């Protein structure tokens, strides 16, 4: 178990040992495996990883929105503002959603109801949590919210429908809906993925601004490290349903330790460096999550892999041993789940120092050599 030096009051959200499983026709999928992390009030945390790594499932599990009956929380706790969300009654959880916990989804084109007005979609969230709010007050609040998220002609827009808005405008409406009751935590799941590149920056800036103004904490989920670079205080890298590295944003970009993080960083186009290094993709595919496997889940794709990586699963441990372990807030320490983390030099090169032979390569070489020997023996 990990130790936390910070007082409990400083934590808005603490996820402990959370596991989520899905039952599918091809077996049980271990979508999230015993992840533990915290979020301080007003903090902005980035969760990064490629498709299928469990980022969205984690957020849906926190919101209590896992698809039923396929999705199931297999263990752990989600403590939000002092209460364990997983033990709440459905109605208590429902009341928390939209009020204290809000979510902005990936695709604004399909996340708004096409047949009811924008006004009704805003007003219903306000009135769902407080039936005493008058219609006039809710209408005024809806108008203010649209103004806040920078939608021109808000009065007219309220009477309109989603199809009359562009993707960027729809995402602004989604953000307005999320903000309606001043939530303590906004989970933004790939909020800019479906948008034009030119709009992405505007939406990110908007999320950052409204979170600052309202004091909400933000969990920003994305597959794009470039998106989180500018606006998060801390980043958590997920792979195969685990957290493989976590650090402050500055630290993570400057000193990535996990080979997967190194790979992610090397696959972002960088205009600022001025050189024309080729982007280096990460070879291979994420593992089949229906199978329980020994060892580090990234090992089969990892150039740094050692013999140990193939048999023993690494825990998330502090990189700078001996230092106090702070996992939340701006003072969070750097932690990584890796037996053979990259050094700064290796991270800069994107490959292990010369001399290291990946256990995968070695194993493959051994198999090739054995095959060659068998072939040579054949008459």
């Amino acid at each position, binding site marked *: 178990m990990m130790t936390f030096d910070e007082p409990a009051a400083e934590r808005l959200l603490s996820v402990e040992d959370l596991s989520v499983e899905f039952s599918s026709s091809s077996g049980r999928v271990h979508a999230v495996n015993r992840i533990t992390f915290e979020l301080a009030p007003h903090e902005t945390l980035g969760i990064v990883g490629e498709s299928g790594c469990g980022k969205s499932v984690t957020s849906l599990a926190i*919101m209590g*929105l896992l698809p039923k009956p396929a999705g199931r929380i297999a263990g752990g706790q989600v403590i939000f503002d002092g209460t364990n969300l997983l033990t709440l009654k459905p109605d208590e959880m*429902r*009341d*928390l*959603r*939209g*009020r204290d916990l*809000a*979510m902005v*989804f990936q*695709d604004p084109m*399909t*996340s*708004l*109801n*096409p*047949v*009811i007005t924008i006004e*009704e979609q805003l007003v*219903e*969230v306000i009135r*769902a*949590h407080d039936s005493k709010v008058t219609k006039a007050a809710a209408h005024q609040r809806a108008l203010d919210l649209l103004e806040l998220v920078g939608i021109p002609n808000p009065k007219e827009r309220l009477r309109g*429908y989603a*199809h009359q808005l562009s993707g960027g405008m729809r995402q602004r409406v*989604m953000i307005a*809906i999320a903000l309606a009751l001043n939530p303590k935590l906004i989970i933004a799941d790939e909020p800019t993925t479906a948008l034009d590149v030119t709009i992405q920056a505007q939406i990110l800036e908007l999320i950052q601004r409204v979170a600052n103004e309202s004091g909400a904490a933000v969990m920003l989920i994305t597959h794009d490290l470039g998106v989180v670079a500018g606006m998060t205080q801390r980043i958590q890298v997920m792979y195969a349903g685990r957290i493989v590295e976590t650090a402050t944003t500055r630290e993570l970009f400057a000193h990535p330790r996990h080979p997967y993080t190194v790979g992610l960083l090397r696959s972002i186009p960088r205009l600022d460096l001025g050189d024309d290094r080729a982007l280096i993709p990460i070879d291979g595919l994420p593992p089949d999550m229906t199978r329980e496997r020994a060892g580090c889940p990234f090992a089969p794709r990892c150039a740094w892999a050692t013999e140990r990586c193939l048999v023993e699963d690494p825990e998330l441990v502090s990189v700078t041993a001996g230092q106090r372990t702070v996992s939340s807030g701006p003072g969070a320490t750097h932690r990584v789940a890796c037996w053979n983390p990259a050094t700064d030099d290796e991270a800069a090169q994107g490959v292990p120092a010369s001399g290291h032979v990946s256990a995968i390569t070695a194993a493959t070489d051994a198999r090739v050599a054995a095959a060659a020997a068998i072939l040579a023996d054949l008459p």
Partner: protein
Amino acid sequence: MLKYIVRRLLLLIPILFGLSLFIIVFVHALPGDPCSSILGEHTSPDRLAACRHGLGLDKPLYQQYFDYMNGLIHGNFGISATNRVSVLDSFVARFPATVELSLAAMLVAIGIGVPLGVAAAKRQGSVFDNFATVASLIGISIPIFFLGLLLAYVFGVWLHWLPTLGRVNHRLYDFTGAGTNFLLWESLVINRNIPEFLDVVSHLILPAIALGTIPLAVVARITRSAVLEVLNEDYVRTARAKGLTNRRIDSRHVLRNAMLPIATIIGLQTGLLLGGAVLTETIFSWGGVGSWLFQAAVDKDFVVIQSGTLILATLFVLVNLTVDISYAYLNPRIRYS
């Protein structure tokens, strides 16, 4: 919107024109004519020829068509060859019975079919869902005459719970007064006679169930698949994330969107029912349009078949126009111009 409605109504002209041409060729292609039905098999060729001449059946077909259409344009729907009554008068006298029966049947279909479909979709794969699937399959496949007779036998003859013949007990209540022939309306609103109204309703129940069973099954199937599709939509997840109550999510988000395909099927089914239900009307002695047109077909009463079909086709188009207009209300993405 008004432009759209006018355009749709103008479209009726070529539809009716084409249909009239089709029907007149079709009915004349059938063996026999009204005269052989009126005079019977054992009649002299002279009398037959005289009868044909009297009805204008000895003229060439294009001439008959021209005469008929000429009358139609002047608002003359023709006169029945068999009973010499104006086709329009017969239709007006019988249509209210069909309207009441059709609406009652659709009330059964929608009132049971929609909730059944929603419940099945929300419990997809459950015992209830499978039960509903089997039940609607039976509903679609059961022959209507069998169901009608079964209902009449069980609830009328055997249990004596409900009447099985006619629209009202004429020994107790006489509707010769107002003459609209909308018996529900007359008994409740004009006569303000509650026992009379209940008598009319009790006569309506069995035929409405018999006629409504197929639309019920169809509506339930369509509702189930529409709801299942909507339940997987992102905006339903958004609605959950907003912390809305399940009731509100179901009514405002799920059903509101699922209503689009359901409305289409309801419109089509209503249009079909208004064409009259021959079997149901025959079993329950319901003096509606269906049994009237059926009799006209048996008698080869050309004018009745032609005019009756054209009137029903017009009504069918109007019902579908109403559905399309309601679509604009249900789906703001559709704007007619």
